[in-house]
């Protein structure tokens, strides 16, 4: 397996907002521009790594723009940074651009919606270990649930870039509770869907995608993990040729890990924990893991040891 990517030149940088665009009822895409040392630090940002944004000084939207279920949360003064992965990282001359896809879910992301072009944001990163890209796999399956999409979009781009042309096929599986919780900009037309391309964000990389919703409001009626199991059942590829990457709710990750284990497929999961710092100071983000494949358990830190873990290692 190729080396895991982690950056040693992490630091605290000021980024400038280049755009902040609403793409759905609760979803936004934010592009941050880094220059100078920040541009150098983030140019090697790997899919699955993350950054910590300070949104404590960002203004709230006007009262009428605050969703009713967040009225109380909006009253809260925030203190800590918030961790985000990126959906894409690009460079242009001496600038690095990082794109975030976020969902308005609490007091910090609510504030984030008011960021506009030219605003400055303090960012710590790149942090953690991202997904590793093995050089001996023929097919990669990307499995996401709810807001687990961002790092897998970034990974989709990296996997389909010329650099990893040995990867013959990449398929994305995206699930959510209901259609409005799918963080994508619309869907492709019927013909594309019949060809297996449902999600424009994956189709742009030439990647097939399947949708599932718990309530059947879009795509398959049921869990996305059922789609994964079905697809694997149809596949005549050898287990050792497949790799699964997953990010999303822990209950989904547990199911993905179980499927991978049953079929003896390599699987990497991106974990999420409440973090105070993201840099290994606070020890908050413990993930219960097996110690070297034994029955002994050990807490690893999501921020420094993860957030991407081998699924066999994690105790769900």
């Amino acid at each position: 397996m190729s080396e895991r990517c982690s950056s040693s030149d992490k630091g605290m940088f000021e980024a400038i907002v280049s755009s902040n665009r609403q793409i759905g009822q609760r979803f936004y895409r934010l592009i941050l521009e880094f220059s100078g040392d920040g541009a150098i630090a983030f140019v090697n940002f790997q899919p699955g790594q993350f950054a910590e944004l300070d949104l404590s000084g960002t203004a709230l939207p006007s009262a009428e723009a605050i969703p009713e279920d967040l009225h109380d949360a909006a009253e809260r003064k925030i203190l800590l940074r918030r961790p985000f992965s990126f959906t894409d990282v690009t460079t242009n001359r001496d600038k690095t651009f990082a794109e975030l896809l976020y969902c308005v879910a609490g007091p910090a992301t609510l504030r984030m919606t008011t960021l506009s072009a030219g605003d400055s944001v303090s960012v710590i990163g790149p942090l953690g270990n991202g997904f590793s890209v093995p050089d001996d796999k023929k097919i990669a399956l990307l499995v996401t649930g709810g807001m687990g999409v961002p790092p897998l979009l970034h990974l989709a781009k990296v996997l389909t870039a010329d650099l990893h042309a040995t990867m013959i096929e990449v398929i994305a599986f995206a699930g959510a509770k209901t259609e409005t919780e799918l963080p994508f900009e619309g869907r492709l037309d019927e013909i594309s869907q019949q060809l297996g391309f449902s999600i424009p964000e994956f189709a742009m990389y030439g990647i097939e995608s399947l949708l599932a919703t718990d309530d059947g409001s879009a795509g398959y009626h049921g869990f996305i993990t059922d789609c994964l199991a079905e697809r694997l059942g149809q596949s005549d590829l050898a287990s050792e040729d497949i790799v699964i990457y997953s990010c999303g709710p822990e209950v989904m990750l547990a199911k993905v890990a179980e499927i991978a284990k049953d079929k003896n497929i390599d699987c990497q999961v991106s974990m999420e924990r409440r973090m105070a710092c993201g840099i290994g100071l606070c020890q908050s983000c413990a993930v219960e893991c097996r110690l070297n494949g034994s029955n002994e358990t050990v807490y690893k830190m999501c921020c420094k040891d993860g957030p991407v873990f081998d699924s066999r290692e994690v105790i769900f």
Partner: protein
Amino acid sequence: MEKTVDISVDFAGIRLANPVFTASGTCGYADELADFMDVNCLGGFITKSITLKPREGNATPRIVETDSGMLNAIGLANIGLDKFIEEKLPILEKMTAAVFVNVAGQTIDEYVAVAQRLSSEKAIAGFELNISCPNVKKGGISFGTEPEQVKEITSAVKEAVGQKVLMVKLSPTVTDISVIARAAVEAGADALSLVNTFTAMVVDIETRKPVLANRTGGLSGPAIKPIAVHLVNKVYNEVAKSRGIPVLGVGGIRTASDAIEFIIAGASAVGIGTANFIEPGCTAKIVEDIKKYCDRKEIANIKELTGSLL
């Protein structure tokens, strides 16, 4: 003519380049912080709690943010004494800041064993006795709330630390903090640090369960600062001043202004905790800004400020 401000501090016989410490549990063992700042600009550095054996810590969630603060219930997760000596001590040896090792345990013997084993290490200036951790069932805070227990553990560890400085960290969750401070000083504490976090709870109203797996956690951050300033002032006036015992003021400090409040209230030095999580290099700026304040107020020596509350 350029004015020279002396912000060095004599802290229980230890010469500190400046009065700024990083507080225990918020700065790891210095290696993580080094990515963001020159740790040598610190006056003092206090390690994460060390216990005799490694501790895995509590289940998650271990933290939750509150208004202008956060609750933590890490549960003294640490690598244990052996690994600390092997892996972390070499890093700390290179530091110019005065290094204090925060010591915790479940029994007095455990505290003594850790202190004794480290007492001859040149890299270590002193120890901070953690008798106020609210997040472990045995040990921790249970030692820090009864004056007799405080005396017993302080005198036992004092004997173990030899020539090193012994600082005792006090819990604010007591009826009268001065009673505890007095017990520690009478039993041989060379310095006091206060305050540790306040035991607190956040409830998830959807599930009706506490958010933290440990149910309760310790509240830290700007929310506790005014209470901490008051308690530092109280301990300074009632215990420390008359006995010449220095106080390390800790609790919600984010800026030099916050730090100076503590110093005026009676602290000889200050510890920065939660703020490290948000801005890992903030202590360097605090040191610089303290100098600027002294300059502006024409204070030649920061000692003049300690306990200068009118």
